């Protein structure tokens, strides 16, 4: 079974309180914020490794980003992935989710005749949860998002449990397919010291656009149909109004006030 798992390097969520906005450019200032693997991507790797342990095969970790993103791929190798590919090309910079999914899909086709693609459901920085589904569309395979568990009924036919509001649904899925996972799906393993030391000597394949067969200009900032036109810091203020009077009257006043504030 050939499994590809997509990972992304993101600012450390534990340091989010230190992130500030550049008021002129409208972008976030990441200086001094350490980068880590997107937390849900660890669950994606774990699920890929579980699938490999069950059916055999290879797990390839794939990321798109600057050279620094090799650090995240090294962690993926330490966790147990067999190979790692970094898609690194200046022309890919500034991509939105569509312009991320498009080159990633092409890279996956170049990596192997894949059976499963596993992604984290969303990332802590962009939080769009769109790359997984868009990737599946480009690859022309079915996908299931918000996955919290898999019943491996046979090698190529699974029952996938996905979270929905106030419950869950079970979906029958035939491979090849793509899933995006939530943290409930598993408990990611910790690499041992030996895993860490051997990962350091494993190669990470660095690919540029010239290694791909990109047919459409859906890459980078220019190929992105969505643009961030502004960013702002949310101004959260707490206040209180104390309403006095008979119960029915106070309830009416409260509803009126909440409507004025846009809460109802």
């Amino acid at each position, binding site marked *: 079974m050939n499994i590809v798992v997509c990972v992304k390097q993101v600012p450390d969520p534990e340091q989010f309180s230190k992130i500030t906005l550049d008021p002129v450019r409208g972008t976030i200032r990441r200086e001094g914020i350490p980068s880590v693997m997107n937390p849900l991507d660890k669950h994606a790797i774990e699920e890929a490794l579980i699938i490999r342990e069950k059916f055999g095969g290879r797990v390839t970790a794939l990321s798109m980003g600057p050279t620094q993103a090799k650090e995240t791929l090294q962690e993926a190798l*330490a966790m147990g992935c067999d190979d790692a590919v970094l898609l690194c090309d200046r022309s890919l910079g500034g991509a939105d989710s569509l312009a991320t999914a498009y080159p990633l899909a092409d890279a996956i086709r170049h990596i192997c005749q894949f059976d499963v693609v596993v992604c984290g459901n969303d990332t802590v920085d962009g939080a769009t949860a769109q790359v997984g589904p868009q990737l599946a569309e480009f690859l022309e395979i079915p996908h299931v998002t918000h996955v919290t568990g898999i019943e491996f009924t046979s090698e190529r036919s699974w029952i996938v449990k996905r979270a929905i509001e106030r419950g869950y649904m079970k979906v029958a899925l035939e491979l090849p397919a793509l899933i995006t996972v939530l943290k409930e799906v598993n408990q990611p393993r*910790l*690499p041992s*010291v*030996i895993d*860490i*030391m051997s*990962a350091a000597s494993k190669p990470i394949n660095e690919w540029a656009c010239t290694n791909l067969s990109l047919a459409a200009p859906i890459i980078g900032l220019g190929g992105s149909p969505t643009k961030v036109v502004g960013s702002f810091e949310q101004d959260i203020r707490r206040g209180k109004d104390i309403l006095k009077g008979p119960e029915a009257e106070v309830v009416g006043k409260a509803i009126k006030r909440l409507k004025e504030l846009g809460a109802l």
Partner: protein
Amino acid sequence: MDFNFTREQDMLRNMVRDFAQKELAPRIPEFDQTEGEWPYDVMKRMGQLGLTGLAIPKEFGGNGMGHVALMIAWEEIARVYATWASHLRGFVLPAYAISHFGPAWAQKEIVPRVCKGEIQGLMSLTEDTGGSDLANIRTTCVADGDHYIVNGRKIMQSRYSVSDFYTVIAKAGEKSFNYLLITKDMPGVQIGRRENYISCTTRTALVGEVIYDNVRVPKRNIIGEEGKGFKPVLTTVGAIGRLGGAGISLGIAESAFDLALKYAKNRKLYGKPIAELQAIRWLLVDMHTKVEAAKYFNYQPSWALDNGKKPHEIAGDLARAKLFANETALDVCLKSIEIHGGYGTTPEFGVIQKMKGALDQMTAAGSNQVMKRAMSEAIIGTSA
């Protein structure tokens, strides 16, 4: 000069941090407040992850990642729960001594099992007449053919009742000392009373006496050279005991600072967080400065050991690391308690436990005043 950690060391730190936060932190109430069997599963897990083998060469079952790596592990575990960082030091101590000084059979049969987290040992040094003053110990070893007969009583032995072997310093003559490997199954080994420490009443912290009553120890169990037992002991105490005390104290200090910073940003006084008050800001700056300085004092000698220096060549640096990191931990914990106000001494806020850990490290592996003695000898020379 290169102050950067390697990528492997960064990844190790991430792994140990995850281990401590996800696997140790949820169990702190169990470790701290309940009695019962010592948690062998944690030792096993540390072995699986490779933490017990960090400073043990590959040929003896370790991974040889080194002293900087071990310092990272101590620091990150102690940030969450100092006792397990202290136990990690305890696992490594006797294995380190054997891996560097023999005997060869134990390097093959004992050390790899320690690295896997299957068995544990302790360095059996301290007596009522001497710990730092090793020359005045009363435990004796008398030659009897190809054996030694060991008699004595060791006190303040960490994990005294759950250890599988002991590396024991014993007097063979006026100026002759042997460092011997004794296993739990040897006739005459007795577990004595548990020490009545305020911090040692729960399942995780076991400290007590081990008594050696006419224990027949084969001469093949000598660690280092016959009659020259101080060398392996002092080498190991310096490289692992003192450096460990430094690492554990650093982790304690960092976490006590983190708690103080978080509290100061949230606690309001005079309509604003107390972190806005100059009195508190200056306290936090002082705490931070010492913590950061302790990192340099700790990692520099760790790096030196990884780069070929022998513990006796940097004895002063190793002592300084432990002295400064522990005094930092004590000071930072005290200031953190002060910043927390009345909450500082309530268990719910966690600072008082940090203080307890800092106090434990003040005397472990040589008290802070003993560190000054070692430093003075390095700086000024041996006193008459």
